[in-house]
């Protein structure tokens, strides 16, 4: 199994359904992790690898919706597919609002399950890629000296070199020099690219 293959996390307190889902997914060459309760999942939260969570709605102890909240709170962004035996409309609405990828009712035909899982994994991939890009940007930005970060912040907020020099009490030429370093460190070829970067980092 490839190291980077996504993991399907199955959380269900019904042993037979949990086991059978694991079996099915294994047969179709998914990587599977089984949890008999929400608490067990939270004990050892999934890493940022690609993957998704198949979550039972009604469980003893923490139920599916509560686990969803908890995961959000913990910034664990694995997409969640609810699989429930007792699906009712209020529960499904709440789940979807909270960002659930899908809401399935047992017994689930495998095609639907795989479609849902496929979508979830796709989403997971996107989220991870986005996260990766963010991380790259943050890494670039983190190379800036405090003075450079100041100038970066003022640049993306549309200040001219002259204005920055005035604000910092330095020569315009010094500013141009720092600006050059900022552009290099951030691997930006133009000012707009730099602005876009800042936007993605939520600085605007």
């Amino acid at each position, binding site marked *: 199994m490839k190291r980077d293959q996504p993991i399907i996390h199955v959380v269900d307190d*019904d042993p*037979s*359904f949990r*086991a*059978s*889902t694991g*079996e*099915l997914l*294994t*047969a*179709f060459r998914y990587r599977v992790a089984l949890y008999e309760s929400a608490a067990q999942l939270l004990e050892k939260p999934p890493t940022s690898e690609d993957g998704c969570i198949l979550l039972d709605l*009604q*469980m*003893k102890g923490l*139920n599916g919706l509560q686990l969803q909240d908890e995961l959000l709170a913990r910034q664990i962004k694995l997409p969640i597919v609810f699989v429930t*035996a*007792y699906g009712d409309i209020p529960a499904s609405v709440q789940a979807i609002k909270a960002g659930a990828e899908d809401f399935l*009712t*047992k*017994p*689930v*035909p*495998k095609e639907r399950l795989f479609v849902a899982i496929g979508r979830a994994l796709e989403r997971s991939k996107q989220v991870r890629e986005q996260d990766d890009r963010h991380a790259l940007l943050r890494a670039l930005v983190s190379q800036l000296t405090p003075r450079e970060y100041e100038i970066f912040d003022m640049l993306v907020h549309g200040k001219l070199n002259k204005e920055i020099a005035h604000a910092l009490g330095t020569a315009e030429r010094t500013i141009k020099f720092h600006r050059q370093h900022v552009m290099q460190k951030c691997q930006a070829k133009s000012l707009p690219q730099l602005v876009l970067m800042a936007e993605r980092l939520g600085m605007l």
Partner: protein
Amino acid sequence: MDDQRPNCWVTLVGTSAGKQSRNGTGVMQVLSHNKSDIVHEDPACGVHGLSQIEHNCRCSGAFFRHLLGAYQRVQRHIVGLLPQRIRRRAPDVLSLSTTTQLTGAMVAFFLLIVGVNSAAAETKRVLILHSFGRDFLPFSEFSGLFREQLVKAYPNQIDLYEASLETARHSDPQDDAPLLGYLRSLFSNRKLDLIVTIGGPAARFIQRYRSEVIFLSTPMMITAIEQRLVDIAALPASDTVIAFNLNFAAAIDNILQVLPMTTDVNVIFGNSPLERYWVEEARRELQSFTDRIKFIWLNELPFDEIRRRVASLPPKSAIFYVLFAVDAAGVPHAGDRPLQELRVHANAPIFTFIDTYLGRGIVGGPLLSHASLSRLAVEAAVPVLGGKTPTTVSVASVGMETPVYDWRELQRWNIEESRLPAGSIVQFREPGLWERYRLQIIAVAVALLIEAAFSAWLLAERHRRRRAELESRGRLLETIHLNRTAAAGALSASIAHELNQPLGAIQNYADAAEQYLKADPPNLDRALTILDNIRRDDQRAAEIIMHLRGLLKKRSEIDLQEFDLNLAVGDAIHILEPEALKRGVSLIASQAKVALPVRADQIHLQQVILNLALNGLDAMQGCDPSTAELTIQSAMIGKAQAEVSVTDSGVGVPSNLLSKVFETFFTTKQHGTGLGLSIARTIIETYGGKIWAENREGGGAAFRFTLPLAKRVAT
């Protein structure tokens, strides 16, 4: 005779002259003691009225002396000579005299003769002359009837005299004189109007002395005589003959009719001249039977010997009893004693042809009827007494009549009634149980009938009651079932979802297995493991369905069984789990460590727990899910009770309603039926338990029920 005197004579007879006065006093005492209406005491005559009696004695002195002479010979017939009206009293008087103090000193007796003075013109004197004595059967029966009927049939007074030719039992003709003398004396002054002779000797006596003054002009009626013994030509025209015809052949025919196997007939006769005559007659008449029957003539044997002989007769014997007046030893036999003794000793049936003996031990057959004979005699006597002297000798006779049998004898000798001649009469039939106890039997039958009717009514009532009970129980069961169905309905959503778990699992496994089999090479081991899992999940689905079916199944009878109450609790928890999960309520089960054997219908108890639990779940509707708890607990209380409690953390029950929640149709829910708890109570009480509700201190309600343990549990 002085008309002023009382119309009676008292005759005093004594042997001791010296004691006359004393004797007279004694007699007087007896008479006054007897309060006899035939003595009229004159108060003026003194204390004892002795002079009056002596006077009367003097008046009839001649007759007195004559009678005294005759007395010793006719001693036994003195009473018989008394006029009919007085005779009844005489024994009383005699017996009283023997009880007086006089008996030792004197051989005195007295005799009362009442001579009727008044209406003498109408009074007819009749002399009845017996042959063998007044009480000699069978004649006595005839004479008794005749006397009785004559007195009744004749309108005027009859002065009856009776005398008996005791001598007829013997063969000595010299014995006639005293009786003749006595009769002469008696009737010299009294004109006889009719002489009735009973039996042959008496008839011959009168005929012998017909020339006597006292008999000469008196019509004679010869009765109770066999026709062939009467020489009608020798009789004067004024005489009447009332005879009977003996038919020996008919009597023997009768024996052969009822006992055809008879070979020996023992003929019983006495040995007096008359009887000897009849023996000869019978021998002659029965000559024709001698080829079929051996006749044994016992007349020349003394009675004791006869009695001995009849006690050991060979089989197929019969006894033919004709007449027994004097036996060969010269001993006279009166009454029916000979017959009675023979009957006691004989080992063969006794026949005769005289109806007198019927009922005294004879089998029966065609019999001579004394009643018929007597009727004929009376019919002939009445006109003669009325003064119509016949101008020719009139002769009437009776023959053997319709056969009559004694039922008891028929039984004794095993003679079937079908053997009797047509038209026979069977008498003395002993009443059967029915005849004898008819009233009692009817009473008992009626009582039984009433009892039976009463029992039937009770049974019907019981049946009706039982049917009503069954119907009522059926309705209750139906209601309980409806309630259970409703509970099942309330749980159906969660049960259906519960069912989806194994079904979903099965589908997953099937898909997985398919995938393994499609692989190259196919992963058979894995597929086989999966099939095992499928089987397990299928089993689980089946169990869920079974639980549901248990709830929905309709029962017409309570399925009473002994089981562990923990099982019912476990099953209920199993059914409730998905519902509690669905509602986000924690279901906490705590079962007793020991078995709690109770006797009930398991489904019913499960239903009670479900009802209580559903109530609890409803009570927690809208509560904070993190604190919502439903606890179901079973425990043993003491040593004889099992308790189940269902506790919720809901709103609890208002304390004023705690006792009302079990009432039918009481509900606090908007859509409740008010039946759940009421049915729970009905079920628990049916099995002898108790159910109640209470509020918990920390909020919420607890419903508890107890049931008696089916047996003591060893702890």
